[in-house]
């Protein structure tokens, strides 16, 4: 059956070409022509399905491909097509299975092997990836990409020596080394060198760097690396010379300046310790602290750099970290005066890290309060020089007041902060930043509604500023004014789409999803809330997926250092605070659904009787129905408007999530990446416990408790969970003896020795 007559065989070759050239409609026609004569030709049927999938008919696509496969189970083409279909739907696990089948039939098919290896990389299946790459390399030893891919895989697995071996072998096999600058060759050599650097033998890395020097295009990278290696080899003077050159080229690069300091043995990560308030005399021998003499030297170095590079902000700012005592007052005074005169809105943000040292905090406070008094009196920062020199611009007082308000806000002296921000507003009522800070102070004071009003005032002063608009939306959501927030947010979304809120989803505005989800949660609307948190999950899924094309692109373009950086970033992606927040909220929602299937209490329901609560819920349900009706009407309206693109949300209430059969399983899906990536966060295990205990998985709950206990035995949530666990164990009737034994084994760890007899 597989063999087609000459004419149809040619036609089949033609449709394969059509697919490669993305001529899907043409290809589909060809396929149908063959199928007319040979309706049971599996490969053609599969191809027909593939064309359908590219013509946006997913369901039919699967149907035809599966049918094709049934006609011809022994065809690698059918399996390959099936894999492609899954791959297009981002179902990589299933795709991988199909490719395995295809390769069983045709083990040396280059095309399939290549696709196969991409999936393995995407799924970080390094062992299998290496095997596939070896096979490809044996088939085509002259292909550069196969060599490099293999090296990257070894590198990612931490097998640096093998990675280096592969690269060296490839480099040796090169017949003509490019004599002209060749970017791709240069990147490969630098990549090779970066692995040597990571491997840790700095002399080897340095020698290699010297040997490739003349082939490398990225000259700055060579200098950075050389300085780094020289430092590690204690060759300080040579390193210093390089860092001086780098600083000259970019005197605002903190890393270069730090490098220079290190080469002069004048680098201290920070001279301040967070506990300095409690222990005024930290031992001078602490390694992170500079001695008075060293401090003087560092400050002298920065004086020198400032003279050389008067426009460098870094050279002005870094001395603030180093200096202490009187020296700090001196450098801070200069920095403050310069910034307040110039009007640097971010001044406080630049300074606040220094507040970890309470002496510095006090010094800053004194400086700005003195400025305020002196500016009011004489129009100058310094009262002593009041009769000499020019007066400061009135904006100097404005920015000083602004700073003081932020200072008191940061130190949570709300009344003072508010008094100062009002003073600043009275001075210059047009400055947007002042109202924003007022909003922030009120937020910290626990007044979300007033905070929102201040933020809206700020917004109304500058309607074209998207940043302040978004801030205002966030504050509206904090005050649970979801409708206002949506209206305000959509001032900046595309006007030509049916559902403007969808534009925020398209732009992956996760802050919005989280804030609005949290607001719905506070209002007891779990469906809507979960919808937002799943949205965040989807964004992270997409970020992970976005790397797929780079597995080919980066190898082809040889941007290997960036490629490895990308892979490492992707591996850590879900430790991002936005993801963690989504997990926390989603777990809470799902747990709530299990605990209170009738709907949970919201703030306004506090103190109601059961009957009142029921009435309240009925009222809410009615409101929901009304909203649903309005939504349907709007949808009909928009459907009739030809200028609007895209679809309306099918499920604005998030019913899909409310109706899930397995809320705890859904919660677990959110949590799993954290269990893998963030095992050192206590929350990971606290949240895990809440899920497992409800799933009646006592051993998993126990494990979560043990892990949390090891991280912080005094955690308040953990203490409550321990009580609950003990109760549940006591109440459970039919614990298997083996399970009971494990629990007994760990009981003392969790509850102390005397508590053994539970």
């Amino acid at each position, binding site marked *: 059956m597989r063999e087609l007559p000459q004419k149809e065989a040619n036609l089949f070759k033609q449709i394969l070409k059509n697919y490669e050239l993305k001529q899907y409609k043409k290809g589909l026609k060809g396929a149908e022509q063959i199928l007319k004569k040979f309706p049971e030709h599996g490969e053609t049927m599969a191809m027909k399905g593939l064309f359908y999938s590219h013509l946006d008919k997913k369901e039919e696509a699967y149907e035809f491909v599966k049918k094709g496969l049934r006609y011809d189970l022994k065809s690698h083409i059918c399996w390959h097509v099936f894999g492609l279909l899954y791959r297009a739907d981002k179902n990589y696990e299933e795709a991988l299975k199909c490719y395995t089948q295809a390769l069983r039939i045709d083990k040396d098919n280059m095309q399939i092997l290549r696709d196969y290896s991409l999936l393995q990389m995407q799924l970080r299946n390094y062992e299998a990836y290496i095997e596939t790459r070896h096979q490809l390399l044996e088939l085509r030893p002259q292909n550069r990409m196969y060599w490099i891919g293999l090296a990257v895989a070894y590198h990612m697995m931490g097998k640096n020596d093998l990675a280096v071996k592969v690269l060296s072998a490839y480099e040796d096999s090169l017949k003509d080394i490019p004599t002209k600058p060749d970017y791709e060759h240069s990147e490969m050599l630098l990549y090779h060198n970066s692995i040597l650097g990571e491997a840790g033998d700095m002399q080897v890395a340095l020698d290699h760097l010297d040997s490739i020097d003349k082939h490398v295009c990225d000259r700055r990278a060579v200098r950075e690396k050389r300085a780094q290696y020289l430092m590690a080899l204690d060759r300080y003077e040579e390193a210093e010379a390089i860092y001086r050159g780098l600083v000259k080229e970019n005197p605002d690069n903190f890393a270069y300046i730090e490098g220079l300091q290190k080469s002069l043995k004048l680098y201290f990560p920070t001279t301040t310790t967070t506990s300095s308030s409690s222990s005024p005399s930290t031992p001078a021998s602490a390694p992170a602290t500079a001695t008075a003499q060293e401090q003087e030297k560092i400050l002298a170095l920065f004086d020198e750099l400032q003279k050389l590079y008067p426009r460098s902000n870094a050279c002005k700012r870094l001395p603030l970290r180093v200096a202490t005592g009187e020296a700090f007052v001196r450098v801070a005074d200069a920095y403050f005066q310069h910034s307040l005169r110039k009007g640097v809105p971010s001044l406080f943000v630049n300074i606040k890290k220094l507040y970890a040292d309470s002496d510095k905090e006090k010094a800053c406070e004194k400086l700005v309060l003195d400025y305020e008094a002196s500016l009011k009196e004489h129009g100058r920062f310094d009262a002593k020089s009041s009769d000499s020199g020019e007066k400061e611009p009135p904006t100097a007082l404005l920015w000083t007041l602004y700073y003081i308000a932020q200072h008191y806000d940061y130190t949570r002296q709300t009344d003072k902060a508010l008094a100062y921000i009002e003073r600043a507003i009275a001075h210059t009522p*047009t*400055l947007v930043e002042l109202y924003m800070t007022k909003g922030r102070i009120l937020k910290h004071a626990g007044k979300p509604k007033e905070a929102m009003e201040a933020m809206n005032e700020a917004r109304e002063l500058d309607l074209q500023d998207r940043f302040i608009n978004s801030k205002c939306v966030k504050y509206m959501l904090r005050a649970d004014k979801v409708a206002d927030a949506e209206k305000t947010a959509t001032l900046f979304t595309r006007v030509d789409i049916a559902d403007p809120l969808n534009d925020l989803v398209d732009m992956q505005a996760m802050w919005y999803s989280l804030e609005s989800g949290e607001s719905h949660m506070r209002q007891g609307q779990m469906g809507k809330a979960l919808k937002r948190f799943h949205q965040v999950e989807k964004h992270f899924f997409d970020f992970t997926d976005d790397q797929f094309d780079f597995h080919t692109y980066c190898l082809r373009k040889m941007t290997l250092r960036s490629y490895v950086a990308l892979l490492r970033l992707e591996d850590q992606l879900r430790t991002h605070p936005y993801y963690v927040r989504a997990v926390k909220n989603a777990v809470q929602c799902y747990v709530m659904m299990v605990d209170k299937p009738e709907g949970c209490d919201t703030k306004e329901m506090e103190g109601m009787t059961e009957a009142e609560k029921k009435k309240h819920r009925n009222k809410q349900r009615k409101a929901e129905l009304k909203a649903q009706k309005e939504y349907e009407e709007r949808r009909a309206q928009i459907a009739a408007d030809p200028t609007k693109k895209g679809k309306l949300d099918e499920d604005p209430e998030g019913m899909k999530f409310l109706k899930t059969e397995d809320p705890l399983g859904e919660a677990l899906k959110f949590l799993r990446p954290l269990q893998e990536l963030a095992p050192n966060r206590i929350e990971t295990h606290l949240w895990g416990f809440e899920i497992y205990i409800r799933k009646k998985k006592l051993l998993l709950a126990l494990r979560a408790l043990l892990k949390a206990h090891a991280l912080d035995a005094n955690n308040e949530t953990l203490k409550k969970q321990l009580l609950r666990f003990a109760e549940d164990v006591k109440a459970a009737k039919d614990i298997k003896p083996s399970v009971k034994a494990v629990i007994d084994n760990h009981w003392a760890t969790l509850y102390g020795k005397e508590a053994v007899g539970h």
Partner: protein
Amino acid sequence: MSSNGTRASSHRIALGDINPNNLGQLKRINTVIFPINYQPSFYKDVLEVGEFAKIAYFNDVCVAAVCCRKDPTPEATAPHDLYIATLGVLAPYRRLGLGTALLEHILEHAAEDKKIGKVYLHVQTTNEEALAFYKKHGFEQKEKVANYYPNFDDSDAYRLEKVLVQ
């Protein structure tokens, strides 16, 4: 421009257009400086007069504004007058040249507009500082208008005008 001794390096004056997006700032300035509550129609007109309404920035902060209107004329060809409805600078920013910059801008553009015959305005009779400011810029004090600002204690005003030489 800065003759009164502030640091020249941190003394930047710039004029800007008024548009629907920054109208809030103009309103804020007028509300703080003038004890008159201007109607929405006033601000609607401001958006239509082009160069005859401006805000001024001092070191990038919006601190002053001028709003004018063109008086309607019976015939299209007749010269019409330009009325300065508001010209104000926030208190901390006075005597820094912002008012002069705004007024000079208005006078320059009025002179370019051949249809404008003169520029005029009203000042409270007791506001000597303002009277001196306009006289310095070539305005002549005209008749006194009794009870021009009915809501103020000092309700009388002088009319000041400057005839433009064509």
